[in-house]
Protein backbone atom coordinates (compact mmCIF):
# COMPACT_ATOMS: atom_id res chain seq x y z
CA UNK A 1 0.00 0.00 0.00
CA UNK A 2 2.61 2.53 1.04
CA UNK A 3 4.93 1.29 -1.69
CA UNK A 4 2.15 1.79 -4.21
CA UNK A 5 1.71 5.34 -2.93
CA UNK A 6 5.42 5.96 -3.36
CA UNK A 7 5.30 4.80 -6.97
CA UNK A 8 2.21 6.94 -7.62
CA UNK A 9 3.94 9.96 -6.13
CA UNK A 10 7.13 9.39 -8.14
CA UNK A 11 5.40 8.90 -11.46
CA UNK A 12 2.97 11.81 -11.06
CA UNK A 13 5.70 14.05 -9.66
CA UNK A 14 8.03 13.02 -12.47
CA UNK A 15 5.53 14.13 -15.11
CA UNK A 16 5.04 17.46 -13.31
CA UNK A 17 8.81 17.88 -13.05
CA UNK A 18 9.38 17.29 -16.77
CA UNK A 19 6.57 19.68 -17.69
CA UNK A 20 7.87 22.31 -15.25
CA UNK A 21 11.38 21.99 -16.69
CA UNK A 22 10.00 22.73 -20.14
CA UNK A 23 8.65 26.02 -18.83
CA UNK A 24 11.63 26.86 -16.62
CA UNK A 25 14.15 26.36 -19.45
CA UNK A 26 12.53 28.97 -21.67
CA UNK A 27 11.87 31.31 -18.77
CA UNK A 28 15.52 31.01 -17.80
CA UNK A 29 16.93 32.21 -21.08
CA UNK A 30 14.32 34.70 -22.23
CA UNK A 31 12.10 35.52 -19.24
CA UNK A 32 9.10 34.22 -21.15
CA UNK A 33 6.42 32.19 -19.38
CA UNK A 34 5.33 30.07 -22.30
CA UNK A 35 1.64 29.38 -21.74
CA UNK A 36 1.52 27.49 -25.04
CA UNK A 37 3.52 24.67 -23.42
CA UNK A 38 0.32 22.75 -22.66
CA UNK A 39 -0.68 22.96 -26.33
CA UNK A 40 2.79 21.75 -27.32
CA UNK A 41 1.96 18.66 -25.26
CA UNK A 42 -1.45 18.25 -26.89
CA UNK A 43 0.08 18.69 -30.35
CA UNK A 44 2.58 15.91 -29.68
CA UNK A 45 -0.26 13.65 -28.50
CA UNK A 46 -2.24 14.18 -31.70
CA UNK A 47 0.84 13.67 -33.84
CA UNK A 48 0.49 9.99 -32.92
CA UNK A 49 -2.77 9.58 -34.84
CA UNK A 50 -3.89 10.18 -38.41
CA UNK A 51 -5.60 13.58 -38.78
CA UNK A 52 -9.36 13.05 -39.08
CA UNK A 53 -12.51 14.23 -37.33
CA UNK A 54 -13.82 10.64 -37.05
CA UNK A 55 -14.68 9.43 -33.56
CA UNK A 56 -12.36 6.46 -33.86
CA UNK A 57 -8.66 7.23 -33.80
CA UNK A 58 -6.41 5.56 -36.34
CA UNK A 59 -2.82 5.26 -35.21
CA UNK A 60 -0.35 6.84 -37.61
CA UNK A 61 3.03 7.47 -36.12
CA UNK A 62 1.69 5.84 -32.94
CA UNK A 63 1.76 2.44 -34.67
CA UNK A 64 5.49 2.62 -35.27
CA UNK A 65 7.85 0.61 -33.06
CA UNK A 66 9.00 2.48 -29.96
CA UNK A 67 12.55 2.88 -31.30
CA UNK A 68 11.15 4.95 -34.17
CA UNK A 69 8.16 6.44 -32.40
CA UNK A 70 9.92 7.97 -29.39
CA UNK A 71 12.62 9.90 -31.29
CA UNK A 72 10.07 10.93 -33.93
CA UNK A 73 7.64 12.38 -31.36
CA UNK A 74 10.48 14.15 -29.54
CA UNK A 75 11.47 15.66 -32.89
CA UNK A 76 7.85 16.73 -33.54
CA UNK A 77 7.75 18.50 -30.16
CA UNK A 78 11.14 20.12 -30.70
CA UNK A 79 10.20 21.14 -34.24
CA UNK A 80 6.92 22.74 -33.16
CA UNK A 81 8.68 24.67 -30.39
CA UNK A 82 11.48 25.89 -32.67
CA UNK A 83 8.96 26.92 -35.34
CA UNK A 84 6.96 28.81 -32.69
CA UNK A 85 10.08 30.61 -31.58
CA UNK A 86 11.00 31.54 -35.13
CA UNK A 87 7.53 32.67 -36.23
CA UNK A 88 6.12 34.18 -33.03
CA UNK A 89 8.70 34.95 -30.37
CA UNK A 90 11.68 36.02 -32.47
CA UNK A 91 9.86 38.99 -34.03
CA UNK A 92 8.87 39.98 -30.46
CA UNK A 93 12.38 39.54 -29.06
CA UNK A 94 12.59 43.08 -27.72
CA UNK A 95 8.98 43.30 -26.58
CA UNK A 96 8.05 43.47 -22.89
CA UNK A 97 7.68 40.22 -20.92
CA UNK A 98 3.94 40.89 -20.70
CA UNK A 99 3.63 41.14 -24.49
CA UNK A 100 5.57 37.88 -24.83
CA UNK A 101 3.30 36.18 -22.32
CA UNK A 102 0.16 37.34 -24.12
CA UNK A 103 1.67 36.16 -27.41
CA UNK A 104 2.24 32.73 -25.87
CA UNK A 105 -1.45 32.56 -24.84
CA UNK A 106 -2.41 33.49 -28.38
CA UNK A 107 -0.10 30.85 -29.81
CA UNK A 108 -1.68 28.27 -27.51
CA UNK A 109 -5.16 29.19 -28.75
CA UNK A 110 -4.01 28.95 -32.37
CA UNK A 111 -2.49 25.50 -31.85
CA UNK A 112 -5.54 24.26 -29.96
CA UNK A 113 -7.92 25.46 -32.65
CA UNK A 114 -5.72 24.00 -35.34
CA UNK A 115 -6.03 20.64 -33.57
CA UNK A 116 -9.81 21.11 -33.31
CA UNK A 117 -10.05 21.68 -37.05
CA UNK A 118 -7.87 18.71 -37.91
CA UNK A 119 -9.11 16.21 -35.33
CA UNK A 120 -12.50 17.40 -34.06
CA UNK A 121 -13.39 18.26 -30.49
CA UNK A 122 -14.30 14.88 -29.03
CA UNK A 123 -11.73 13.04 -26.94
CA UNK A 124 -10.50 9.89 -28.67
CA UNK A 125 -9.47 6.62 -27.17
CA UNK A 126 -6.03 5.61 -28.29
CA UNK A 127 -4.04 2.73 -27.06
CA UNK A 128 -0.31 3.16 -26.94
CA UNK A 129 1.75 0.24 -25.68
CA UNK A 130 -1.22 -1.50 -23.95
CA UNK A 131 1.02 -4.40 -22.90
CA UNK A 132 2.70 -2.06 -20.41
CA UNK A 133 -0.45 -1.94 -18.28
CA UNK A 134 0.25 -5.39 -16.84
CA UNK A 135 1.20 -5.36 -13.19
CA UNK A 136 4.50 -6.78 -12.05
CA UNK A 137 5.39 -7.87 -8.57
CA UNK A 138 7.99 -5.63 -7.02
CA UNK A 139 9.09 -5.74 -3.37
CA UNK A 140 5.83 -7.36 -2.43
CA UNK A 141 3.62 -4.86 -4.23
CA UNK A 142 1.79 -5.05 -7.56
CA UNK A 143 3.03 -2.19 -9.71
CA UNK A 144 1.98 -1.56 -13.33
CA UNK A 145 4.94 -2.04 -15.66
CA UNK A 146 4.11 1.33 -17.19
CA UNK A 147 4.61 3.13 -13.91
CA UNK A 148 8.09 1.70 -13.52
CA UNK A 149 8.95 2.66 -17.09
CA UNK A 150 7.63 6.19 -16.51
CA UNK A 151 9.72 6.63 -13.37
CA UNK A 152 12.85 5.26 -15.03
CA UNK A 153 12.32 7.38 -18.15
CA UNK A 154 11.81 10.52 -16.09
CA UNK A 155 15.04 9.86 -14.21
CA UNK A 156 16.90 9.17 -17.48
CA UNK A 157 15.57 12.38 -19.05
CA UNK A 158 16.56 14.40 -15.98
CA UNK A 159 20.04 12.87 -15.96
CA UNK A 160 20.56 13.48 -19.69
CA UNK A 161 19.43 17.07 -19.35
CA UNK A 162 21.70 17.64 -16.36
CA UNK A 163 24.70 16.21 -18.22
CA UNK A 164 23.90 18.27 -21.29
CA UNK A 165 23.62 21.49 -19.31
CA UNK A 166 26.73 20.76 -17.30
CA UNK A 167 29.04 19.32 -19.95
CA UNK A 168 28.12 20.60 -23.40
CA UNK A 169 28.98 23.96 -24.94
CA UNK A 170 25.35 24.85 -25.67
CA UNK A 171 24.53 23.88 -22.07
CA UNK A 172 27.20 26.23 -20.73
CA UNK A 173 25.96 28.99 -23.01
CA UNK A 174 22.38 28.44 -21.85
CA UNK A 175 23.37 28.64 -18.20
CA UNK A 176 25.39 31.79 -18.83
CA UNK A 177 22.55 33.31 -20.86
CA UNK A 178 20.03 32.45 -18.15
CA UNK A 179 22.04 34.52 -15.71
CA UNK A 180 22.95 37.51 -17.89
CA UNK A 181 22.00 37.26 -21.54
CA UNK A 182 23.56 40.60 -22.46
CA UNK A 183 26.91 39.60 -20.98
CA UNK A 184 26.84 36.22 -22.72
CA UNK A 185 26.29 38.00 -26.05
CA UNK A 186 29.23 40.32 -25.35
CA UNK A 187 31.30 37.13 -25.11
CA UNK A 188 30.16 36.00 -28.54
CA UNK A 189 27.32 33.68 -27.47
CA UNK A 190 24.76 33.70 -30.28
CA UNK A 191 21.37 34.72 -28.91
CA UNK A 192 19.44 32.98 -31.68
CA UNK A 193 21.22 29.66 -31.22
CA UNK A 194 20.77 29.62 -27.45
CA UNK A 195 17.09 30.56 -27.60
CA UNK A 196 16.36 28.08 -30.39
CA UNK A 197 18.21 25.42 -28.37
CA UNK A 198 16.13 26.15 -25.28
CA UNK A 199 12.91 25.93 -27.30
CA UNK A 200 13.99 22.66 -28.92
CA UNK A 201 14.70 21.12 -25.51
CA UNK A 202 11.47 22.47 -24.09
CA UNK A 203 9.50 21.04 -27.02
CA UNK A 204 11.16 17.64 -26.62
CA UNK A 205 10.24 17.72 -22.91
CA UNK A 206 6.63 18.53 -23.86
CA UNK A 207 6.65 15.51 -26.19
CA UNK A 208 7.98 13.34 -23.36
CA UNK A 209 5.05 14.40 -21.19
CA UNK A 210 2.70 13.70 -24.12
CA UNK A 211 3.93 10.12 -24.49
CA UNK A 212 3.58 9.44 -20.78
CA UNK A 213 0.09 10.96 -20.61
CA UNK A 214 -1.17 8.98 -23.58
CA UNK A 215 0.29 5.73 -22.31
CA UNK A 216 -1.26 6.31 -18.88
CA UNK A 217 -4.69 7.67 -19.81
CA UNK A 218 -5.28 6.14 -23.26
CA UNK A 219 -6.99 9.34 -24.36
CA UNK A 220 -6.19 12.07 -26.86
CA UNK A 221 -7.99 15.27 -25.96
CA UNK A 222 -7.40 18.72 -27.40
CA UNK A 223 -7.61 20.17 -23.88
CA UNK A 224 -5.28 17.70 -22.21
CA UNK A 225 -2.25 20.00 -21.98
CA UNK A 226 -4.03 22.73 -20.05
CA UNK A 227 -4.33 21.07 -16.65
CA UNK A 228 -0.73 19.86 -16.60
CA UNK A 229 0.51 23.23 -17.83
CA UNK A 230 -1.19 24.86 -14.83
CA UNK A 231 0.44 22.48 -12.35
CA UNK A 232 3.80 22.80 -14.11
CA UNK A 233 3.63 26.57 -14.05
CA UNK A 234 2.85 26.47 -10.33
CA UNK A 235 5.83 24.15 -9.86
CA UNK A 236 8.15 26.63 -11.58
CA UNK A 237 6.88 29.43 -9.35
CA UNK A 238 7.14 27.35 -6.17
CA UNK A 239 10.59 26.15 -7.22
CA UNK A 240 11.78 29.70 -7.85
CA UNK A 241 11.36 31.13 -11.36
CA UNK A 242 14.36 30.30 -13.51
CA UNK A 243 15.76 27.64 -11.19
CA UNK A 244 15.88 24.30 -13.00
CA UNK A 245 16.58 22.18 -9.88
CA UNK A 246 13.79 24.14 -8.18
CA UNK A 247 11.33 23.28 -10.96
CA UNK A 248 12.20 19.59 -10.69
CA UNK A 249 12.01 19.54 -6.89
CA UNK A 250 8.72 21.43 -6.82
CA UNK A 251 7.30 19.16 -9.56
CA UNK A 252 8.05 16.09 -7.46
CA UNK A 253 6.77 17.84 -4.32
CA UNK A 254 3.47 18.71 -5.98
CA UNK A 255 3.08 15.15 -7.24
CA UNK A 256 3.84 13.74 -3.80
CA UNK A 257 1.50 16.20 -2.07
CA UNK A 258 -1.32 15.33 -4.49
CA UNK A 259 -0.93 11.62 -3.91
CA UNK A 260 -0.56 12.05 -0.15
CA UNK A 261 -3.66 14.24 0.10
CA UNK A 262 -5.64 11.80 -2.02
CA UNK A 263 -4.74 9.04 0.41
CA UNK A 264 -4.95 10.96 3.67
CA UNK A 265 -8.03 13.12 3.20
CA UNK A 266 -11.36 11.73 4.45
CA UNK A 267 -13.51 10.39 1.61
CA UNK A 268 -15.94 13.32 1.67
CA UNK A 269 -13.06 15.85 1.38
CA UNK A 270 -11.31 14.14 -1.55
CA UNK A 271 -13.21 15.97 -4.30
CA UNK A 272 -11.63 19.12 -2.89
CA UNK A 273 -8.10 17.73 -2.99
CA UNK A 274 -6.86 20.44 -5.34
CA UNK A 275 -8.13 23.15 -3.00
CA UNK A 276 -5.97 21.66 -0.25
CA UNK A 277 -3.06 21.30 -2.66
CA UNK A 278 -3.17 24.91 -3.82
CA UNK A 279 -3.70 25.99 -0.21
CA UNK A 280 -0.34 24.37 0.51
CA UNK A 281 1.15 26.21 -2.45
CA UNK A 282 -0.11 29.53 -1.09
CA UNK A 283 1.36 28.68 2.30
CA UNK A 284 4.76 27.90 0.78
CA UNK A 285 4.74 31.13 -1.20
CA UNK A 286 3.77 33.15 1.88
CA UNK A 287 6.76 31.72 3.72
CA UNK A 288 9.17 31.87 0.74
CA UNK A 289 7.91 34.37 -1.84
CA UNK A 290 11.05 33.89 -3.92
CA UNK A 291 10.34 30.16 -4.23
CA UNK A 292 12.05 27.20 -2.64
CA UNK A 293 15.22 27.61 -4.69
CA UNK A 294 15.77 31.21 -5.70
CA UNK A 295 18.28 31.29 -8.55
CA UNK A 296 21.79 31.86 -7.15
CA UNK A 297 22.14 34.88 -9.40
CA UNK A 298 19.19 36.56 -7.73
CA UNK A 299 20.95 36.86 -4.39
CA UNK A 300 22.73 40.17 -4.00
CA UNK A 301 26.31 40.12 -2.80
CA UNK A 302 27.83 43.01 -0.94
Amino acid at each position, binding site marked *: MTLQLLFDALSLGGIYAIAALGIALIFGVMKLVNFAHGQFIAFAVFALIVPSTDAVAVMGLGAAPALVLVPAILAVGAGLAVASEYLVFRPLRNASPVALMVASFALGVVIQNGLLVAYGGRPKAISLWPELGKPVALLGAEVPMLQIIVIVSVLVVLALLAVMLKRSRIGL*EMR*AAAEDFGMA*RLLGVRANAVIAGAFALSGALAATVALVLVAQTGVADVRMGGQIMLVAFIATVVGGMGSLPGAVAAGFALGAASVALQAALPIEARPFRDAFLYGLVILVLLLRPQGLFAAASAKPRV
Partner: protein
Amino acid sequence: MSKLGVFDLSVRYGKLTAVNDISFSVAEGERVFISGPNGAGKSSLLAAIAGEVRAAHGRIEMDGDILSGRVPEAIARRGLSMVPEGRRIFRALTVQENLMVGVGLRRDKTAVPDDLEAIYAAFPILGTRRHANAGALSGGQQQMLAIGRALMTNPKLMLVDEPSLGLAPRVVDEVYDRLCSLQAQRGLTLVIVEQSSARAGRVGGRMLLLRGGRIVADGDATAFAADDLLKEAYFGEATP
Protein backbone atom coordinates in the same frame (compact mmCIF):
# COMPACT_ATOMS: atom_id res chain seq x y z
CA MET B 1 44.97 52.23 -40.41
CA SER B 2 43.72 52.77 -36.91
CA LYS B 3 42.53 49.90 -34.76
CA LEU B 4 39.31 51.56 -33.71
CA GLY B 5 37.62 54.46 -35.44
CA VAL B 6 34.60 56.29 -34.06
CA PHE B 7 32.97 58.84 -36.36
CA ASP B 8 30.24 61.33 -35.38
CA LEU B 9 28.80 58.90 -32.87
CA SER B 10 25.70 59.84 -30.90
CA VAL B 11 23.79 57.76 -28.37
CA ARG B 12 20.38 58.77 -27.12
CA TYR B 13 18.04 57.35 -24.52
CA GLY B 14 14.69 58.84 -25.45
CA LYS B 15 15.24 62.59 -25.39
CA LEU B 16 18.44 62.36 -23.36
CA THR B 17 21.62 62.57 -25.40
CA ALA B 18 24.32 60.57 -23.60
CA VAL B 19 26.97 60.70 -26.33
CA ASN B 20 26.94 63.73 -28.59
CA ASP B 21 28.65 63.53 -31.96
CA ILE B 22 31.94 62.05 -30.81
CA SER B 23 34.83 61.20 -33.14
CA PHE B 24 38.19 59.69 -32.23
CA SER B 25 40.50 56.91 -33.26
CA VAL B 26 42.69 54.46 -31.37
CA ALA B 27 45.95 53.09 -32.77
CA GLU B 28 47.02 49.45 -32.64
CA GLY B 29 48.52 48.60 -29.25
CA GLU B 30 47.53 51.93 -27.72
CA ARG B 31 46.14 52.37 -24.19
CA VAL B 32 43.40 54.99 -24.05
CA PHE B 33 41.65 56.13 -20.90
CA ILE B 34 38.23 57.66 -21.09
CA SER B 35 37.68 59.89 -18.11
CA GLY B 36 35.16 62.45 -16.99
CA PRO B 37 32.48 63.11 -14.39
CA ASN B 38 29.40 60.99 -13.78
CA GLY B 39 26.94 61.21 -16.65
CA ALA B 40 29.62 62.31 -19.14
CA GLY B 41 28.67 59.41 -21.43
CA LYS B 42 31.69 57.17 -20.80
CA SER B 43 29.83 53.92 -20.29
CA SER B 44 27.34 54.71 -23.05
CA LEU B 45 30.22 55.22 -25.43
CA LEU B 46 31.68 51.79 -24.57
CA ALA B 47 28.27 50.15 -24.74
CA ALA B 48 27.73 51.59 -28.22
CA ILE B 49 31.12 50.35 -29.43
CA ALA B 50 30.39 46.84 -28.10
CA GLY B 51 26.94 46.84 -29.70
CA GLU B 52 24.98 46.68 -26.46
CA VAL B 53 23.37 50.01 -27.18
CA ARG B 54 22.34 51.10 -30.66
CA ALA B 55 23.86 54.38 -31.81
CA ALA B 56 21.43 57.11 -32.82
CA HIS B 57 23.82 57.93 -35.62
CA GLY B 58 27.47 57.72 -36.54
CA ARG B 59 29.84 54.94 -37.53
CA ILE B 60 32.20 52.65 -35.64
CA GLU B 61 34.98 50.74 -37.38
CA MET B 62 37.56 48.23 -36.26
CA ASP B 63 40.38 47.31 -38.64
CA GLY B 64 38.36 48.98 -41.37
CA ASP B 65 35.38 46.70 -40.73
CA ILE B 66 32.13 48.42 -39.78
CA LEU B 67 30.88 47.46 -36.30
CA SER B 68 27.96 49.84 -35.91
CA GLY B 69 24.58 48.21 -36.50
CA ARG B 70 25.87 44.75 -35.67
CA VAL B 71 24.64 42.63 -32.74
CA PRO B 72 27.03 42.23 -29.77
CA GLU B 73 27.91 38.61 -30.56
CA ALA B 74 28.92 39.57 -34.11
CA ILE B 75 31.16 42.33 -32.77
CA ALA B 76 32.73 39.97 -30.23
CA ARG B 77 33.43 37.54 -33.06
CA ARG B 78 35.43 40.24 -34.84
CA GLY B 79 37.87 40.45 -31.94
CA LEU B 80 36.42 43.00 -29.56
CA SER B 81 35.92 42.01 -25.94
CA MET B 82 34.31 43.84 -23.06
CA VAL B 83 35.00 43.90 -19.32
CA PRO B 84 31.76 45.57 -18.30
CA GLU B 85 30.92 47.95 -15.52
CA GLY B 86 30.04 46.01 -12.37
CA ARG B 87 31.97 43.02 -13.81
CA ARG B 88 28.81 41.01 -14.53
CA ILE B 89 30.41 37.66 -13.86
CA PHE B 90 28.17 34.59 -14.00
CA ARG B 91 27.76 33.94 -10.30
CA ALA B 92 26.13 30.53 -10.54
CA LEU B 93 28.90 29.23 -12.83
CA THR B 94 32.30 28.09 -11.63
CA VAL B 95 35.36 30.24 -12.21
CA GLN B 96 36.50 27.98 -15.03
CA GLU B 97 33.05 27.91 -16.64
CA ASN B 98 33.05 31.71 -16.63
CA LEU B 99 36.35 31.68 -18.47
CA MET B 100 35.04 29.15 -21.00
CA VAL B 101 31.81 30.96 -21.98
CA GLY B 102 33.65 33.16 -24.48
CA VAL B 103 35.72 30.52 -26.24
CA GLY B 104 32.79 29.39 -28.41
CA LEU B 105 33.60 32.11 -30.91
CA ARG B 106 37.23 31.06 -31.38
CA ARG B 107 38.44 29.21 -34.44
CA ASP B 108 41.74 28.18 -32.80
CA LYS B 109 40.10 25.79 -30.32
CA THR B 110 43.33 23.84 -29.84
CA ALA B 111 44.95 26.89 -28.23
CA VAL B 112 42.24 27.12 -25.55
CA PRO B 113 43.84 24.86 -22.88
CA ASP B 114 47.12 26.77 -23.08
CA ASP B 115 45.30 30.10 -22.90
CA LEU B 116 43.39 28.90 -19.85
CA GLU B 117 46.66 28.02 -18.14
CA ALA B 118 48.07 31.43 -19.13
CA ILE B 119 45.12 33.13 -17.41
CA TYR B 120 45.70 31.01 -14.30
CA ALA B 121 49.38 31.96 -14.42
CA ALA B 122 48.51 35.66 -14.65
CA PHE B 123 45.84 35.39 -11.94
CA PRO B 124 46.93 32.53 -9.65
CA ILE B 125 43.92 33.00 -7.34
CA LEU B 126 41.62 32.08 -10.25
CA GLY B 127 43.58 28.87 -10.75
CA THR B 128 43.30 27.94 -7.10
CA ARG B 129 39.58 28.53 -7.13
CA ARG B 130 38.82 27.28 -10.62
CA HIS B 131 36.06 24.93 -9.47
CA ALA B 132 34.53 27.34 -6.95
CA ASN B 133 31.33 29.22 -7.74
CA ALA B 134 32.26 32.61 -9.15
CA GLY B 135 29.70 34.27 -6.87
CA ALA B 136 31.88 33.32 -3.90
CA LEU B 137 34.87 35.38 -5.11
CA SER B 138 35.77 38.74 -3.56
CA GLY B 139 35.27 41.92 -5.56
CA GLY B 140 38.90 42.10 -6.67
CA GLN B 141 38.92 38.45 -7.67
CA GLN B 142 35.71 38.98 -9.64
CA GLN B 143 37.36 41.88 -11.47
CA MET B 144 40.27 39.63 -12.40
CA LEU B 145 37.84 36.94 -13.51
CA ALA B 146 36.02 39.45 -15.71
CA ILE B 147 39.35 40.43 -17.29
CA GLY B 148 40.39 36.81 -17.74
CA ARG B 149 37.00 35.95 -19.21
CA ALA B 150 37.35 38.75 -21.78
CA LEU B 151 40.90 37.64 -22.63
CA MET B 152 39.75 34.05 -23.25
CA THR B 153 37.97 35.26 -26.40
CA ASN B 154 41.46 36.14 -27.67
CA PRO B 155 40.53 39.74 -28.46
CA LYS B 156 42.47 42.29 -30.48
CA LEU B 157 40.73 45.18 -28.75
CA MET B 158 39.53 45.12 -25.17
CA LEU B 159 37.15 47.61 -23.58
CA VAL B 160 37.36 47.86 -19.79
CA ASP B 161 34.65 49.78 -17.95
CA GLU B 162 35.53 51.17 -14.50
CA PRO B 163 37.85 48.39 -13.32
CA SER B 164 38.49 50.19 -10.03
CA LEU B 165 34.83 50.50 -9.05
CA GLY B 166 34.24 49.29 -5.50
CA LEU B 167 37.78 47.98 -4.99
CA ALA B 168 40.33 48.89 -2.31
CA PRO B 169 43.17 51.08 -3.70
CA ARG B 170 45.75 48.34 -3.21
CA VAL B 171 43.59 45.92 -5.23
CA VAL B 172 43.14 48.54 -7.94
CA ASP B 173 46.94 48.80 -8.25
CA GLU B 174 47.12 45.06 -8.66
CA VAL B 175 44.38 45.01 -11.31
CA TYR B 176 46.14 47.72 -13.33
CA ASP B 177 49.54 46.01 -12.99
CA ARG B 178 48.09 42.82 -14.43
CA LEU B 179 46.20 44.65 -17.16
CA CYS B 180 49.33 46.50 -18.29
CA SER B 181 51.57 43.44 -18.30
CA LEU B 182 48.94 41.42 -20.18
CA GLN B 183 48.70 44.23 -22.71
CA ALA B 184 52.45 44.21 -23.20
CA GLN B 185 52.52 40.41 -23.58
CA ARG B 186 49.70 40.21 -26.07
CA GLY B 187 49.99 43.47 -27.99
CA LEU B 188 46.42 44.26 -26.99
CA THR B 189 44.73 47.54 -27.70
CA LEU B 190 43.02 48.80 -24.54
CA VAL B 191 40.25 51.34 -24.04
CA ILE B 192 39.60 51.88 -20.33
CA VAL B 193 36.92 53.94 -18.67
CA GLU B 194 38.44 55.33 -15.48
CA GLN B 195 36.62 57.88 -13.38
CA SER B 196 39.79 58.82 -11.51
CA SER B 197 42.02 60.84 -13.82
CA ALA B 198 44.72 60.72 -11.14
CA ARG B 199 44.71 56.96 -11.41
CA ALA B 200 44.86 57.14 -15.21
CA GLY B 201 47.75 59.56 -14.93
CA ARG B 202 49.68 57.14 -12.71
CA VAL B 203 49.11 54.19 -15.03
CA GLY B 204 49.93 56.23 -18.10
CA GLY B 205 48.59 56.36 -21.63
CA ARG B 206 46.41 58.61 -23.68
CA MET B 207 43.34 60.20 -22.16
CA LEU B 208 40.09 61.36 -23.65
CA LEU B 209 38.20 63.65 -21.33
CA LEU B 210 34.44 63.52 -21.71
CA ARG B 211 31.90 65.98 -20.47
CA GLY B 212 28.23 66.25 -21.35
CA GLY B 213 28.64 63.59 -24.03
CA ARG B 214 31.46 65.40 -25.84
CA ILE B 215 35.23 65.04 -25.89
CA VAL B 216 36.62 68.16 -24.24
CA ALA B 217 40.27 67.16 -24.22
CA ASP B 218 42.52 64.52 -25.80
CA GLY B 219 46.14 64.09 -24.74
CA ASP B 220 48.63 62.42 -22.45
CA ALA B 221 47.04 61.09 -19.25
CA THR B 222 50.01 61.83 -17.03
CA ALA B 223 50.23 65.41 -18.22
CA PHE B 224 46.48 65.80 -17.77
CA ALA B 225 46.35 64.50 -14.26
CA ALA B 226 47.56 67.75 -12.75
CA ASP B 227 46.01 70.03 -15.34
CA ASP B 228 43.33 72.63 -14.79
CA LEU B 229 41.42 71.31 -17.74
CA LEU B 230 40.35 68.45 -15.55
CA LYS B 231 38.93 70.59 -12.83
CA GLU B 232 37.04 72.49 -15.45
CA ALA B 233 35.66 69.29 -16.94
CA TYR B 234 34.55 68.01 -13.58
CA PHE B 235 33.33 71.18 -11.93
CA GLY B 236 32.55 73.51 -14.83
CA GLU B 237 33.94 76.98 -15.41
CA ALA B 238 35.53 78.44 -12.31
CA THR B 239 33.34 81.24 -10.99
CA PRO B 240 35.07 84.24 -9.45
